[in-house]
Structures are given as structure tokens and as C-alpha cells.
């Protein structure tokens, strides 16, 4: 038996292609994940939970048949996003701390692999693993599609943005994992960062309300007499009103100045990126929207500010429709990419060998 390769190999310059290295790490990670039975159990529980929620939505919304599909579809998106935020940190934040604990990280570092290749491979693997949770909901999305009222141009955008958001959470997780020494710590920090995006944006928006408090002069709306009858037969026109002359001061919030605080919220990014379904021609019907549509609507209302929210401003009837606001999601996505990129870059620094500074209590191998 040989204990060395042929001399031909020895003379060849050692080389590991950048993509080949990433592919090997990716394969290594994915193989370990798919051999883990817990992973399949999690997928199964996941499917049952989402199916139950979507089924209940179908029961309650679908009485008259119309609108149920859109609501169900958006529910699936919202749920995958919500639970993805919970699952993706757990899937990604152990990827490097786990190797540290097992003593396999040093083995990888002692090959021709660079820290960058290691991080790319780990990130891709955890992203693909979390996309698995989106893939198992495909039957439920298909079910929603059978209702025929899903606004089709928005569907691929919602799905793509959802995948991007999962990728960002995974990048944060892998980056934190490269920085941390213990898996538990890495998972917790990742959860906190995800919470910062998901809840922190909402809290800062809410608290900032006080800073943009303004006083405006408003007056009461006066509706035509006929509208006051209980059995008004005609079409209701919400712009058919006049304003009283007597104005009074009302406290309101210039939300258009603080809406950007919501930008980095994953739900806002996904909802804001999707094109909106056009208003139905029959004005008595309004477009049925699920949770994502509602978020998108809310953000635009907040972007418009009091100028477009108050029907009688300074005693003047105000029916101006807000201009289509600038999309908020590029800002949000930019903030998220910067955050994730910064953490991953710091993690890459930490993975460089030969290692200079080490945190107290660290063993390399």
C-alpha cells in the first residue's frame, strides 16, 4: 500500500479554486444537515403548523369565496417570514461555533481553505437549509393559488424578497457564529439582532412619535343630510363633504419624518417591495389584502403624513391623494446588508490564521 501519492501530484503547485473551496464547504455542511433526523422532524412540525393556520384562514375568510386566496397566500408569506426569523438564527449561528466546539474548525483552517471561502460555504448552506422551510410550504401556496384571486405580479416578488430576508438573517447568524466562542451565545446574539430589526424598528418608531408631535388646525366634516339616514340607498361617496368654518387645534404626528425608522423591518422590506394590486374598478369593493398588503398600506399611510391624513385642514377640504411615495425597501435592505456584511467581515477577520489575539479561554484546537 502506498503512503504517498504519485510524485506527479507533489510537483503540482497546491491550488484550491475559490469556488471549489466554497462548494466543498457547502457540500460538507449540507451533508451533515440532511443526515440529521431532527431536521426532518422540524420540517414536518413546521408544515403542520402553517397548514393549520392557512386552513383556518381559508375557513374564516372564504365564506363568500372572494379574497380568500390572497389572504391565504400572504399569510403563508408572513408565517414563513416570521418563523424564518426564529429558525434561521438557530440554523446559522451554530455553524462555526459548533465546529469550534468539535475541534473541526482548526482542521478546516489548516487546509488551503481561506476564511472567505469558509464563510461563503457556511452561509450558502444555512441559507439553503432555511429555504427548505419555504419549499415545504409550496403545497399551501398552491392551495391559495387555486382560489384564482392571488395578485400574480406580486407573488414572485414576495417570494424572492422572503428568500433574501432569510439569507440576511443567515448571514448575520454565520457572522456572529464566527465571532462567538459558544453556540448558545451566538444564537442569542443573533436573535437579539433579528429582534432589533423586527421589533426594535417598531419600538423606535413608536417612541419617536413624541419627537414629531405637531399641532394642526382642523375642523369637523359635514356630510349631506341624506347620508345621515339609516337607509341611504345611493352610493356612498367619501369625498362628498364640506368643512366647518370653526377650527380647533388638534395634536397629530408628522409620521412622514420617522417612517424611515421602519425601513429595516423585514416585514416592511418584503411588503414594500411587492407591487400593489390596482384598485378594483367597482369602488364599492375594496381590494382584499392579507397581512403583507396591510403592512404595505400602513407604511404608505405613515409616509404620507398628516397633510394627507386629515380631511379638514385649516378649514379647507383636503381630498388630495398622497403622491406615490418613494419605495422604502431599498433603504431597509441597504441597512440590513450593511449590518450583515459588517458582522460577516468582522467574523472573517476573526477566522484569519495564524491567529493573533485570542479571546480569553479560547482553545484553537
Amino acid at each position, binding site marked *: *500500500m502506498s503512503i*504517498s*501519492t504519485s510524485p506527479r501530484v507533489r510537483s503540482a503547485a*497546491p491550488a484550491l*479554486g475559490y469556488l471549489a*473551496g466554497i462548494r466543498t464547504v457547502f457540500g460538507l455542511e449540507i451533508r451533515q444537515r440532511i443526515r440529521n433526523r431532527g431536521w426532518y422532524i422540524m420540517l414536518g412540525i413546521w408544515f403542520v403548523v402553517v397548514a393549520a393556520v392557512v386552513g383556518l384562514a381559508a375557513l374564516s375568510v372564504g365564506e363568500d369565496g372572494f379574497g380568500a386566496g390572497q389572504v391565504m397566500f400572504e399569510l403563508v408569506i408572513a408565517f414563513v417570514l416570521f418563523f424564518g426569523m426564529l429558525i434561521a438564527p438557530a440554523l446559522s449561528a451554530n455553524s462555526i461555533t459548533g465546529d469550534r466546539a468539535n475541534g473541526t474548525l482548526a482542521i478546516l483552517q*489548516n487546509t488551503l481553505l481561506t476564511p472567505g471561502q469558509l464563510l461563503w460555504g457556511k452561509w450558502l448552506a444555512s441559507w439553503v437549509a432555511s429555504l427548505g422551510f419555504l419549499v415545504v410550504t409550496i403545497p399551501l401556496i398552491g392551495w391559495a393559488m387555486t382560489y384564482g384571486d392571488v395578485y400574480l405580479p406580486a407573488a414572485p416578488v414576495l417570494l424572492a424578497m422572503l428568500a433574501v430576508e432569510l439569507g440576511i438573517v443567515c448571514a448575520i447568524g454565520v457572522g456572529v457564529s464566527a465571532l462567538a466562542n459558544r453556540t448558545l451565545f451566538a444564537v442569542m446574539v443573533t436573535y437579539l439582532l433579528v429582534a432589533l430589526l423586527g421589533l426594535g424598528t417598531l419600538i423606535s418608531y413608536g417612541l419617536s412619535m413624541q419627537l414629531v408631535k405637531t399641532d394642526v388646525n382642523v375642523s369637523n366634516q359635514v356630510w349631506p343630510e341624506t347620508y345621515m339616514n339609516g337607509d341611504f340607498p345611493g352610493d356612498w361617496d367619501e369625498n362628498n363633504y364640506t368643512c366647518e368654518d370653526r377650527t380647533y387645534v388638534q395634536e397629530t404626528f408628522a409620521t412622514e419624518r420617522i417612517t424611515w425608522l421602519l425601513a429595516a423591518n423585514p416585514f416592511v422590506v418584503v411588503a414594500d417591495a411587492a407591487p400593489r394590486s390596482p384598485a378594483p374598478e367597482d369602488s364599492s369593493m375594496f381590494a382584499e389584502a392579507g397581512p403583507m398588503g396591510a403592512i404595505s398600506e400602513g407604511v404608505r399611510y405613515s409616509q404620507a403624513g398628516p397633510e394627507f391624513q386629515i380631511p379638514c385642514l385649516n378649514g379647507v377640504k383636503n381630498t388630495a391623494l398622497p403622491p406615490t411615495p418613494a419605495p422604502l425597501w431599498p433603504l431597509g435592505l441597504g441597512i440590513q446588508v450593511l449590518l450583515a456584511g459588517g458582522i460577516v467581515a468582522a467574523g472573517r477577520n476573526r477566522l484569519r490564521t*495564524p491567529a493573533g489575539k485570542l479571546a480569553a479561554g479560547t482553545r484553537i484546537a
Partner: protein
Amino acid sequence: MESAVTVPGRAPGQRQDLGSGITATGLARSFGAVRAVENIDFHAAPGKVTALIGPNGSGKTTLLLMLASLLRPDAGSIRIQGIDPTADPRAVRAVLGWMPDTLGFWESLTSREILTTVAALYGIGKAQARVRAAELLEVVNLGELADTPARVLSRGQAQRLSLARALVNDPSVLLLDEPASGLDPGARVQLRTLVRQLADSGKTVVISSHVLVELDEIADAAVFLSRGKTVRSQSLAEAGAQSRGYTIASLDLEMLRVALAEANFEAAYRGNLENGGGSAKLKLTGEVQAGELLGRLAGAGVPVTAFAPTSGLLEETYLSLEDEMP
């Protein structure tokens, strides 16, 4: 591992390009307030097995991590086959095989997959990686367990897999951190044979171990560390020349005592309780003197049943160093 004697593709006795082995001078490294390595000079020659010996916490593993290009020394310089690992770690890793003291494996992968994955990370092509993995699994006697997940391997088996992993890139410099721990006696003999072969084929081999008797048999040179410093570097030939303790056992302690006294040796005697036999412990200046003394005792008709060094060569040095320490 016995089957690993021949090296195809290389005529018997033909050696690899030797290179310059490992040279490290003035190494220092601390972790916070702990000065793990204070001042280490280390040289390991190609084609030789160099033993790294020292008590727990003397800096052996830290030194090996620095040599393996994973840890940056605070001071001092390292050359592995002439390459500086802090300046060009990738070039060093291409020629280096490192077997860590902690066993780490991807537990759900099989032994074969682990070896082919590591091979891929050295840029070895798929087909070649498969051949290489099969070869190495035979070399370390894991052929039967090649396709079982690594988590079922026993400690000794995992140790052998770890050695195979260190050999994947056919390194010219091999660093083995406690390779024999957890191995059964048979596997230890095999490991010794393999390490000898690897060194004979021109590789630079560094072994750290606590089992000094074992190192006696494979090491060509030894470097002793204590509290992060090199306290002695010697070849085994030098160790053989130094004065060391011998134990002589005889069926007749009184005759032995008389014979040793005549030859002017001071010795500590211990008699057996059940008969007149017993043993003597004494210091001899070297192997030549030992040979002469044995001849003399035999000539005087002393019934000698055992005549041997009290401890192994390296152990002797190790213990003498401990005596010197404050």
C-alpha cells in the same frame, strides 16, 4: 500498517526532496497573562523523527499550533521547509500535515467522506481523492470501517483516522500531537512502524507524547520543554552516552554486593524477602561501562538475572531535568 512498507512510484530507498525541515528560533507566545511559550528554539531535520517532550502545560501544543500556522508567535521566527508560516500560511499548509491532540470529526460523515472532503480542500481532484482515501484507510487499518459514520469509531480508531487525515496531502512535514494516546498495544506498534517509514521516506516528523518509552524506540532526536522554554535538545545517540541509572537483579544479593564493592561501585541494595536474592541500583557513565560491568559480574560468577537501565533514555533525561528544576 505492516502492508505500508513499499511505496509504489518511488524506488526503494529513494527519498523525497528533503527540504530544510523545521527551524524555529526565539519563539514566544502568551495568552493574556499566561506566558505559554517564553523562549523556544526548535529544530527538526528531514528524514528524522523529533520527539517533543515536556510536562503538561510546558507549551508543547502551543508550539505545535505555531508550527502548524494556526497561531501567530509574539516573537521569534519559524521556517517550515524554508517558508514563513506567518507570511505565507497557505504555502506552509500545502506541505504540512497536522494531527491535533483533540479529535475532531464531522460525526455524520463516514471515514471515507472525511478523507475525500479534506482532500478536496487541498485541491485534489475527485477521482484522485477517492484513490487517496482508500489508500490511507488501508494504511491505518480502517478499511472495514470506511463507510460507517465517524461517530461510531472508538477513540483508537478515531485517532488512526486523524492520522490518515493528516497524511491526505502527502505532507513533507508531519506534526503529531500525542498520536499514540488511546491506541491499543498492537496499534502502537503499527503507528511506530508507520512513523518510521514516513521519516525514512524523507519527511520531517515531530511527535509529542507523554509515553517516553515509546519515543525511545522511534525518535532520532528529542527536544525537552519546560515552562515554555527549550531546556535541552539532544539526539538519542547523545542520550545513550549520558550517565544513567541501572538496575541489576541477582539470585544472590550478597555475591552481587561483594562484586560491586570490589569494582568500586556505590549502589543501593534491596533484598527479596523470600530468598537471598535481590537487586542493586547504581549509576553508570554510559553504555560502555555497563557492558564492562556486566562482563565482570558474569566472570565473577554472580547469578545475574536482569541487567537493564532503570528507565528509558528520554525518561532519564526528563527526570534529570526535573531534578535540576527549582
